[in-house]
C-alpha cells in the first residue's frame, strides 16, 4: 500500500508537441503546453543540457468525468545543445499555452559572406 501511494504522488510527465526550426540567427522551439502558466514554466540550462518543465496544477474536480481525454501530468523535455548556441542569448516567451524558446546562435558560428575582391 505504501508503495502504491508513493507511485501515485509522482506526477506523470510527457513530451509536449514541438516544432523545431532553425534559421541563420537562432534555433526556435515552439511547444504546446496548454494549462501551463508563466509561474509554472521552468527552463534550465545546465552546460549542454536544456531542460524544459511545464507544471500543471492538478485541481480537484468535483463531480464525475463523463469524457476524459486530456492527459494528466506535466510537460517535460530535455534537449542537448551544442557549442554553437550562445548561452546568453536564450529567450523564452509563453502565450496562450504556447511556449516559444529562442536559442541564439553564436556570432562566430553564423554564416558569413566573403566578398571576392577583384584586382
Amino acid at each position, binding site marked *: 500500500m505504501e508503495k502504491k501511494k508513493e507511485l501515485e504522488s509522482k506526477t506523470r510527465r510527457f513530451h509536449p508537441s514541438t516544432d523545431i526550426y532553425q534559421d541563420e540567427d537562432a534555433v526556435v522551439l515552439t511547444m504546446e503546453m496548454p494549462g501551463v502558466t508563466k509561474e509554472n514554466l521552468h527552463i534550465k540550462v545546465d552546460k549542454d543540457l536544456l531542460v524544459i518543465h511545464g507544471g500543471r496544477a492538478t485541481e480537484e474536480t468535483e463531480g464525475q468525468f463523463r469524457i476524459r481525454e486530456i492527459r494528466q501530468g506535466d510537460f517535460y523535455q530535455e534537449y542537448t545543445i551544442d557549442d554553437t548556441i550562445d548561452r546568453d542569448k536564450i529567450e523564452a516567451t509563453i*502565450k496562450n499555452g504556447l511556449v516559444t524558446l529562442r536559442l541564439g546562435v553564436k556570432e562566430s558560428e553564423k554564416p558569413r559572406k566573403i566578398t571576392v575582391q577583384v584586382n
Partner: protein
Amino acid sequence: MAIVKWKNPKLYDPWADLKNLQNEINDLFNYDRMPSSTGLFDRNVTPAIDFVEGENDYTVKCELPGLEQKDVDVSIASNVLTIKGSKEENREEKKGKYYKKEIWSGSFQRTISLPSSVDSSKIFALLKDGVLSITLPRKEETKPKQISVNVK
C-alpha cells in the same frame, strides 16, 4: 442515471493496477500527438476534451494551445454544444528548415450532446493559458435537493 454497484474507492483493488498498466500500454499505441478524430460528425481534427458532471453544473474543458479568443467559436443549438475554430500557422517568410514538426494547424470542430438539464441561457466560457473552460449550469429544478427526514 443508471444505478451502479457501489464500490468503495478506499478499498485496495488488485485489478486496478493491472488495468492501469493495460490502459497505459494502450495509450502508447493510440497516442499519436495529434488530436483524435472521433464521432460520426467530427471529421476534422478534434482537440481533447474533458466533460465533468458536477452537482450544480457541468464543465467542459478543451485544450486549445496557441489560440486566441477570435479564433474560437462556441455555440449551442438545441442542446448540442459546438466548439469550432481554426488555428493558422504562422506564415512568415521562412528561410530556415524544420527539424521537427508536430504542431498541427487547420480548422477543428467538436460537438457534444448535452443533457437536457443544462440551462443554456447561463453558459460561461473562458479561454486561459490555452485551455478553454465552459461552465454549463444545471437547471434549478434538476439540481439534487436535500430532503429532510422527519422523525415522529
